[in-house]
């Protein structure tokens, strides 16, 4: 295992300590527990608060989106493991500004069970909690079982648009409606070229041949849908684009937001080579690209690979996407 760390068991806590020291004006923590990350200015009184959570090892997901115009708090678990209901509850209490809390997180059973418990605890304290599950990864289940799909990079579009709506003073119902609309119009798919290593496990989650890639990879080093020969960037892009469009079914003339996300070890150069083909194919089909996000937004530590996410936009989502944001990992001016 080639990682820069001390004791693997301290990986998450030390990462959080470093992060809190690096961003003291933007981030703080609740409940005397560094796993409970909140905006330094939480609670924002009168604003609907947004929280997320999940395992570590995906930076900027999840906590990287806590900040102005996006999220108010995030409960952080161990690498690839849910935070506890307690921790989610601590975050919830600290960020609640009197207008309710929206949980937006990926559809993973550990997280679902713990967020549900946290919501029950919050309701007992009179905090209204609403939940929106992210299930954007088309590779994880066919359309007829779309509710089983897992959440990957597409969650960033939900954070961005719902976060903007809340920042603009939207009500709890309005913020939930925006998150749901964003996600109903968002689809993702990924490929992996190399595995990653959970620090505490000490060995890679899977092995893969020098000339192979894993199609439909998630962001946890779980094996994907199938293993194939490595293809060219254009072939990989084409394949992902066609799968996503077949599922999203945009009409000619529709406008999309596009994200080309690196899984960790894939350099930005390669992501832009993918984007080149995305731009060519989408515009070739009469689709418009309003904004392109190319970089690392949801990773699996040092995994090589990339994912594509498209969100179909209407006027409201476009305006919310364009709204400013300022978090340690996501700045839009």
């Amino acid at each position, binding site marked *: 295992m080639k990682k820069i760390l001390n004791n693997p068991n301290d990986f998450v806590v030390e990462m959080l300590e470093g992060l809190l020291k690096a961003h003291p004006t933007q981030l703080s923590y609740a409940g005397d527990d560094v796993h409970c990350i909140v905006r330094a200015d939480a609670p924002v009184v009168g604003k609907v608060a947004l929280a997320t959570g999940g395992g570590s090892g995906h930076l900027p997901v999840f906590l990287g989106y806590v900040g102005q115009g996006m999220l108010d708090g995030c409960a952080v678990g161990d690498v690839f493991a849910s935070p506890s209901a307690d921790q989610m509850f601590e975050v919830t209490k600290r960020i609640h500004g009197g207008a309710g809390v929206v949980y937006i997180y990926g559809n993973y059973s*550990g997280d679902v069970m713990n967020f549900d418990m946290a919501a029950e605890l919050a309701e007992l304290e009179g905090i209204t909690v609403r939940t929106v599950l992210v299930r954007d990864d088309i*590779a994880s289940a066919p359309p007829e079982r779309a509710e089983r799909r897992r959440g990957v990079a597409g969650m960033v579009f939900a954070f961005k648009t719902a976060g903007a709506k809340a920042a603009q003073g939207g009500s709890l119902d309005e913020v939930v409606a925006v998150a749901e609309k964003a996600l109903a119009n968002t689809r993702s798919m990924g490929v992996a070229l190399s595995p990653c290593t959970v620090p505490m496990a000490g060995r890679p989650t899977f092995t893969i041949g020098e000339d192979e890639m894993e199609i439909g990879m998630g962001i946890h080093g779980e*094996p994907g849908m199938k293993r194939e020969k490595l293809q060219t960037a254009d072939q990989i892009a084409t394949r992902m684009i066609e799968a996503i469009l077949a599922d999203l079914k945009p009409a000619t003339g529709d406008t999309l937001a596009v994200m080309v996300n690196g899984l960790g070890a894939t350099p930005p150069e390669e992501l832009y080579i993918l984007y080149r083909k995305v731009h060519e194919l989408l515009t070739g089909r009469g689709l418009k690209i309003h904004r392109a996000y190319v970089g690392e937004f949801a990773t699996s530590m040092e995994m090589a690979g990339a994912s594509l996410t498209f969100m179909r936009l209407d006027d409201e989502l476009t305006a919310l996407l364009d709204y400013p944001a300022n978090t340690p990992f996501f700045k839009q001016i």
Partner: protein
Amino acid sequence: MGYTGQHVTEAMLRVCAALKAKTDYLTSLDQAVGDGDMGYTLGKIADALALYATGTPTNDLGKFLAGAGMAANKAGPSTMGTLLATALMRAGKAVMGKSELASADLAQMLQAAEQGIQERGKAQLGDKTILDALHPAAGAFAAALAGGQTVAAAGASALAAAIAGRDAVTPLRSKIGRASWIGDRTEGRVDPGCEALVVILSALTNAPGT
């Protein structure tokens, strides 16, 4: 003859030691069909429970077990950890107020644990989860006791039933949770949650398992 706080504490410590001894194997099973955190998570829970077991009064075994469930959830709130925590809380609720457990209590605790895991995780039998080992185990345990067998004999049938349940779903495709996303590649692979239950029951019955 009932089971005292000392029995329960010792049983919990046996389970903790067994989970710690199997972390690598459980991790490798979870790497094959999931994300590879299970061994580590259950190891952390084992550490937390061992600490808990040696430092917590057992005069109310129901409270003791429910508290163990809360400690487990804090220590390792992954899917498996949360289900285990739920099982402990429900088992505790089933025997709340008691300072000694009769054999019938054990059967009820097992049943309560199964129901808790079902309600929390919403899996169906055949989805290829821990439930597919726990359901036959709880049934076999209760049936054996009802048939007049000793707790030791009933434990042995429960373990045998769990192993059979685990093996029966091994050829199947996982239908829920993380493993469901890799589709037919789960076929022929042991479900890590089933295996974890076999490890736990082996330790409880003090049998070599597998």
